[in-house]
């Protein structure tokens, strides 16, 4: 345990290369201000996977590792759509998942937004239309913002969230 704490103090806060750090700092500041102004200090996101390959979820999980630490910006992933401002939608809309995604959307209180994450929901991933896929998410939900990538890297997700916040 002592060894652990020694290391903990020596490591301090994880930093990246200076350039990335500078960008993070600006993003962080802008983001914090926007979250504060528009969402009273906390933006609640409900992540919904409607048929991904799981890499998009992995990148969202990576957002909370010490390098990105999204929560310090006041952005939280919440457990229920009823607590959410934003639905972050990943994956193709499968025939089997679509009713559940729409259900979750219905449960979200107004005002609410949907952000599509990655190439899948907009049908730009290599997956082709089959009987088991119900076309692009835009046909089912009002998409307020799209974050492209396959998968979008954590920093791209952060940039995307910032652009979304600026746009509303």
């Amino acid at each position, binding site marked *: 345990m002592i060894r652990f704490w020694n290391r903990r103090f020596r490591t301090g806060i994880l930093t990246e290369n200076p350039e990335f750090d500078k960008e993070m700092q600006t993003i962080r500041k802008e983001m914090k201000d926007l979250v504060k102004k528009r969402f009273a200090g906390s933006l609640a996101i409900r992540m919904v996977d409607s048929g991904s390959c799981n890499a998009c979820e992995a990148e969202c999980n990576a957002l909370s590792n010490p390098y990105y630490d999204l929560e310090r910006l006041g952005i939280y992933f919440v457990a229920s759509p009823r607590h959410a401002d934003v639905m972050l939608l990943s994956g193709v809309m499968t025939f089997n998942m679509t*009713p559940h995604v729409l259900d979750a959307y219905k449960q979200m209180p107004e005002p609410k937004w949907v952000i599509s994450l990655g190439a899948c929901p907009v049908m730009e991933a290599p*997956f082709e239309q089959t009987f088991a896929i119900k076309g692009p998410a835009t046909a089912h939900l009002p998409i307020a913002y799209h974050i492209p990538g396959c998968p979008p890297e954590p920093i791209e997700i952060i940039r995307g969230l910032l652009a979304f916040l600026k746009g509303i």
Partner: protein
Amino acid sequence: MRLIARYAKECEAHFEIITVWDTKIEKESVPKHDPRIKTLTKQHPAAIWFERKMHDDYGIIIEDAFDNRPLVHQEYFPSAIHPMQKAFQAKSITPSDYKPYKYETIGGDGVFEVAVGPIHAGIIEPGHFQFSQAGEDILHQEVRHFYKYRAIEKMLEGKTLQAAKPIIERISGNESIAYQIAWRDIVLQATRSELPEQSRKYHALLLELERMIHHLTDLGFIPNDAGFGAALAFASKLSEEARRQLQRLTGHRFGFGAIDFESHTMQTEVWLHYLETLEEELALFEAWIIDIPSLWDRFDTTGILKAKKAKKYDTVGIIARASGLTLDRRDEPFYQTHGFVLQTESSGDVAARYKMRLKEARNTLTMLRNFTVETSEAITLHTLQDGEYFSFVESAIGELFMSVEIKDGVIERFFVRDPSFVNWQALHLMMPDNIIADFPLINKSCDLSYAGNDL
């Protein structure tokens, strides 16, 4: 005998049922006008999902099966449609009326049900778990999946192996390299080509790095599900760094597009230096985590899968090895000469699965060193020959099986069995004698793929 997979394919006049065992492959023909087969579930309970899927896919009737419910096709799926039949070519279907799914439950005084999913509380893939509860105690659990069913098998029919690659590598994102290597082995067999040693090493290195990322991620998330967040902070830092190495080597954080027949150069100095830091950090992590009694209190005796059951349910991978089965596709000369040592545990609980990940991470580290190559060689493939090809790869989760039939140069039938497909069926065996609050912990200790299972 261990059951690996069981699936059907459509031929001119009949359906062929292919059953893959660890020692042989059996084929059986059934007429199209009355397709019936006998169930294997009495000896191999995990055959049931394969058989239910066969019914959904082709309309094949499984005689004497104890469970005839649809598997892949859910409440709104039109029951008359069997989409893997060649005649079915529609690109969309109209939802049918709602047909409720009858969950497997236990009745009795005061017994109640808890439905979890398909959308879960965290950032995780969708699936459904139905619990029968006596207070806190779990009496039974049914795992229900296929919410993510994208019809990959059908999607790939008629494509060349090259055109299928971008889809195959995205079947299950965190096993992408394993899927690509399974694809590679099929291409090599179909073109009667050989891979030079250097390239084999390079590909094996990428697969071990993928495994390392997987294990590091779990080494953080499993304690986190027992309320020990510090481990997640530590281990997720390590997995992020490993992922960045994968990106440095392949240009992609998940290695999409990484396995090919081109030549690649590694900056070995940077790489070996990275391995050194990883080794040091991993040793520190292990010394720290092993010594937290309150955490092991939660891990020990939680979610036990006994060796007998693990065998009976034909489980593979970490789960099987944590219950004492000596089963690993890497247990062969090529891996052994590069430092592979088969790891097992015996208690079959969360603790065993956690220790397995620690041990395997250490062993993988050795192999990552031994597989280091300056450059891999490019090769030219010979001409493709029609035929039926099979491949096996040990992914981070367990044994992955893929089979592809090529006809007239394109895919006639694509089948893949993710390790998760068999392991999911053993999850409920770990539940009795546990409380429902431990379910997330048990589930995480297995860390199975939903996407690879559902296809």
